[in-house]
């Protein structure tokens, strides 16, 4: 990057100007410091961490307890990653991962640990306003789960993994079908499968009928599809993002899948029917969404009893409202828009650099996302930190790995 990394003397919080400039914060990345903004209940703290030597998890944990003045309280740490997912910090590894992926700032969310029942909801940052009409079903189902407070199966905290796939709508689909959601975002893995034309056998009132169908023909080794274990060769594809593929040509289905590739939901009829979900009596006893981490094997497809996501009563989710507006299921609002005309001081610079290929970078986070996490978050956070004063100053710690820097803390 040739662009100058001038620390921004931006002291007009909330103003349009500062917001614009904040989107340019990658400029500051040259500094060896990571901004950390941590939130506990309604309070925010801002600190700085050395990128190179942030220290270990326990130190960090203690530091946060200190600056939030909750030394004795058992808490869980989570951070919002670039895709807006809330990921846990509970060991050195994922702490370092969090620090290194901070771009530009690391947002920490601290929640009180309430025994073992509280887990980080994997889906909490992806509010579905639409889709397959799943939201309603899911919340009602999860409410009942919660009210019964059934111990059930527990899935441990996802260890530094992001959800990449899930089985959904188990309760409304026939047992022989499986609806799989693949989350392409965030991973650089290819989706990695091929489809083909084939013949499917249907049982109709006239008897058995052969109809053309579309099947998975191949899984690419190391691809997303293969790593989930939820899709297999010769699985018949029935729906793509809720749209029936019957009567559509292979090319049409291909185009539909590619067009939905950022958030692909395929309903398949697995060729191997042995791993099917078995309904256990009560429909609502189980959660409706199962999730399989990338570490998950094919067998884990059975364990679809995951913590209920996105229910209002969940304190974690409530505090996660910072991530509102994230819309990774809506590709379009992820369009990258470079508005050079707003960048008056840099204009000449920009123009001369115009054949730089900076636009071809695949990572969206470096440039302004109009409705994205970055924008809404930074806005609200600026206001918040102003209301609360700047407590980070007072709670400065003596640990060497931490360092305060007024320039960086102020936004």
């Amino acid at each position, binding site marked *: 990057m040739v662009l100058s990394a001038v620390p921004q003397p931006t002291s007009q919080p909330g103003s349009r100007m500062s917001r614009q400039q904040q989107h340019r914060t990658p400029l500051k990345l040259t500094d060896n410091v990571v901004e950390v903004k941590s939130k506990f209940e309604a309070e925010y703290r801002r600190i700085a961490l050395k990128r190179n030597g942030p220290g270990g998890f326990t130190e960090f944990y203690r530091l946060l307890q200190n600056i939030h003045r909750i030394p004795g309280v058992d808490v869980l740490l989570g951070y919002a990653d670039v895709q807006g997912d809330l990921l846990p910090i509970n060991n050195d590894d994922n702490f370092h991962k969090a620090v290194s992926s901070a771009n530009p700032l690391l947002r920490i969310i601290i929640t009180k640990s309430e025994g073992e029942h509280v887990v980080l909801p994997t889906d909490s940052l992806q509010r579905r306003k639409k889709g397959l009409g799943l939201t309603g079903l899911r919340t009602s189902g999860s409410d009942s789960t919660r009210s019964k407070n059934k111990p059930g199966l527990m899935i441990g905290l996802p260890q530094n993994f992001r959800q990449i796939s899930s089985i959904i709508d188990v309760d409304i689909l026939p047992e022989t079908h499986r609806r799989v959601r693949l989350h392409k975002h965030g991973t650089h893995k290819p989706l990695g499968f091929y489809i*083909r034309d084939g013949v499917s056998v249907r049982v109709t009132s006239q008897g058995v009928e052969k109809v053309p169908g579309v099947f998975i023909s191949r899984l690419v080794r190391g691809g997303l599809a293969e790593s989930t274990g939820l899709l297999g060769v010769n699985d018949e594809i029935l729906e793509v993002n809720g749209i029936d593929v019957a009567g559509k040509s292979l*090319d049409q*289905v291909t185009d539909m899948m590619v067009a939905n590739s950022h958030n*692909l939901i395929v309903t398949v009829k697995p060729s191997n029917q042995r791993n099917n979900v078995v309904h256990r009596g009560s429909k609502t006893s189980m959660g409706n969404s199962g999730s399989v981490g990338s570490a998950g094997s094919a067998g884990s497809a059975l364990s679809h009893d995951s913590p209920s996501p996105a229910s209002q009563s969940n304190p974690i989710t409530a505090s996660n409202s910072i991530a509102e507006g994230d819309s990774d299921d809506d590709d*379009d*609002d992820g*369009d990258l828009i470079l*508005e*050079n005309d707003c960048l008056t001081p840099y204009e000449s610079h920009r123009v001369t650099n*115009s054949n730089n290929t900076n636009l071809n970078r695949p990572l969206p986070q470096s440039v302004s996302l109009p409705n994205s996490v970055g924008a809404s978050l930074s806005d609200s956070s600026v206001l918040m930190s102003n209301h609360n004063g700047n407590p980070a100053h007072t709670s400065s710690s003596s640990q060497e790995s931490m360092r305060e820097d007024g320039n960086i803390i102020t936004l």
Partner: protein
Amino acid sequence: MKRFRRHGQESQRDRLKQELFQFNKTVEHGFPHQPSALGYSPSLQLLAIGTRSGAIKLYGAPGVEFMGLHDENAAVTQVHFLPHQVELVTLLDDNSLHMWTLRAHKGLSELMEIGRFTLTGPPGAPPSVTRVTAVLAHSSGELLLLGTEGGHVFIVEVPGFRELEERNISLDQVASSVPDDYIGRRNLEHIEALQENPVNPNQVVIGYGRGLMVIWDLEKQCAIQHIPATQQLESVWWAEDGGYILSSHSDGSYCRWMVSVEEVNEEEEEKSDIPYGHFPCKAISKIIQLPTQEGPPFLLFSGGMPRASYGDRHCITVIHSKTHVALDFTSRIIDFFAIREGPQHIGDPSALVVLVEEELVVIDLQTEGWPVIQTPYLVPLHSSAITCSHHVSAIPLKLWERVIAAGDLQSTHYSKRPWPITGGQNLAPDPPQRDLLLTGHEDGTVRFWDASGVCLYPMYKLSTAGVFHTDADPNDNMNQGTEGEWPPFRKVGCFDPYSDDPRLGIQKIHLCKYSGYLTVAGTAGQILVLELNDEAAEQTVEAKVVDLLQGQEGFRWKGHTQLDVREEPVLFPPGFQPFSLVQCQPPAVVTALTLHSEWKLVAFGTSHGFGLYDYQQKNNVLIKCTLNPSDQLAMEGPLSRVKSIKKSLRQSFRRIRRSRVSLRKHHVNNAAKLQEANARLEAELAEMELAPVQRKIEARSSDDSFTGLVRTIYFADTFLSDSSHNTPSLWAGTNGGCVFAYMLRLPPVEHRADEPVTAQSAKEIQLMHRAPVVGIVVLDGHGAPLPEPLEVAHDLARSPDMQGSHHLLVISEEQFKVFTLPKVSAKMKLKLTAVDGSRVRRVGVAWFGSSRSEDYGESGLVVLTNQGDVHVVSLPTVKLQVHYPCVRREDVSGIASCVFTKHGQGFYLISPSEFERFSLSTRCVVEPRCLVEVPLLSGSSTQRRPKPDVASSAHRNARQDGEDAEVLQEIQKSLEGDQTSFLENNVKSAVA
């Protein structure tokens, strides 16, 4: 309540949609693909062409055309009009006969099939017995004589196809009477020809393949005369006075046989000739002879060329007195006929009509030198392959006249005589406006067609080859002929598919109809700016080279080289004359082009980037490289024709090698890393190619190939940087889903010539879904698309609303997306692919007028998808309105060739030589409306008139008594009444 109201609104919207949109395929322009049969009715003055795909097309006066399609997908082998009637019979490849008629319905004639028939032989007979080889429509209009491969003649009553078994002429009947000394009497072979005696309808000549001809009396059912020709027979012609018969043979000879009036004595061959003799000749496939009032007759025959030296020529020889010309056509001759003068069409021959495989040529036989008459329809669009097309609606009269004037100067070699085929009446109202269709061709020409009405008429032809050095010899004239050459060849026809240099091919065209500025761009990255000039001018065209790579390194262009520009001044004839040339470097095909005549700017794009050129100052304003560094394919130039062959060869070699490698790979594990990576890549490639039924599902990424290819480029005067000042702007969209916007600063008009135009990068939008951007439109404050440049200045469009906020509409292959301006943020979208699985292939902005109220209309987007469906998408709300299936999904070239008009019509190629015209609008429909009436034949025996469309009447016997005639007259009257009331309706609706 609310729900009810909304429902009401929806139904109201549905009603409105019905008033606005309606889909029709209206007419086919151009020359039918693979014609296989020709027919002509002198009494109706109609020409019929049958094609190998089973289509039958009738043409009369310009604007009078009919089209029918046989259900069977078989080639039409013969077309015969029933004499003096509106029926015609077609014979198909599958041996079925079909009866068609022109039936009047609401004052317009329609071509419809009214019967079909297949000969059935006696049980157990081989199929050859009934395989029809010759058809004669008897002049009575009631009989059809069918000669078969088995040598029998079947007689069938028409139009009902009733076999008259007792009158059949069997081979045995004929063979028994054949003179004993005739060599081939044991096997007469199939029936090659059937001809009626022009003066005695009871006599027909039956020509057998072996050569024997028999004159048969239909009344007495006996042979009158035997003509013992010994060469394989090709065709027979009975001279008009009935006095002699001409026969043509497979050895290139023709013979003249006298017909004896006394039915007894056998006449000898009077005259035999091999016109191009001495050495072996090819067959004369058809011969006709026509008398003239005074002087010698015209003799016309096809073929007969010396086999060794000219066996590959497609010739028709015309001999009249001392004039002897061998018309040399560029494609195979299907059939020909002559048109004769006079009310009865029995006068002197006036024109020779020749159907060859790729065009219809009409020769004026009455003007000295027998010039060609320009055809008003059936023009071969593909005289050089069409590479692109561009439609301009509502041409101002002035430009129209200037283009016509320029075109007239080019067509001086055509005959001045009017078009000789004049059947039917064209009842279509005059076209409401003048529309121009421009087609770019592979040989570097641009043809201008009058697309206002049913006939796609050639107006003017622009050639850009003169600007460049080409391999072609400029003295290579089509019409040259050496003195004293034998045979006396003369080249006719304009079909010439051989291009001197494929780099000359025209890829993009943009015409400003107000200023007369035209820009065309071609295969080798050449962009020409042309101006309409009524005078010839000699000028040098200076080339400006644009380096689109802009310092991008590591690429090597492997495609064709750029064209060499002539440095000396070139003389340009009146018409569009080039004055500015831009050559892109690398010389990749130009993929996007636009011209703004008010700003005097041309913008263009290739697979490497885009540029902006100021054609007043002849200066480059902006060059932008859009190339992705990881995109290697873009550099190879695979879009070039020559290259693609090479590439596919290389890939097939790779494939072979690959299969060997994969066998070995199991044993050799320690391969170098690079090699492994290469192998994997190749494996993937091979896999994709070897298994075409498999499709990869992968998100688009920035390193896909051709992401930098510029798909669309657009000028707009809009609010790019702030909401209070509109500025000129340039927009470009790429294959990788990226949109670039530049703010343009134009100097004031008085300094336009000396102050530079500048462009400043203002915005870049990367669509998250990364689908190729195929269209960019800016909508004004009312949600209407911005008008074309100069449109407002000419008072032809309402000036755009500059008060309200503008919106940017980006059309990708997958989505329609509306953004706000000047701050770009997504506002609305329509996902096409994610829901439908189809992708946008072609898109245009059109205005749809309501059929009910004159002053209501809407703008909309017209979209053609890769599924071949057309959609109308509303503006500015981007909602799907209607969709219709239009082109076959598999017809990729048809989909790619589609062009939309500004008033909801469109054209696409249904074959290399034919445009199908379709209309989505209820108000703008160009379709043939014509009426064909039965010619009144003075004192002729039986004759029918167009029948009302009552099914039973089709089978009614043709006999009419006085009563019937009266009834028919009444019907006729009522039909005419219908017609006038229809016209009135038309007027009314126009007034309303």
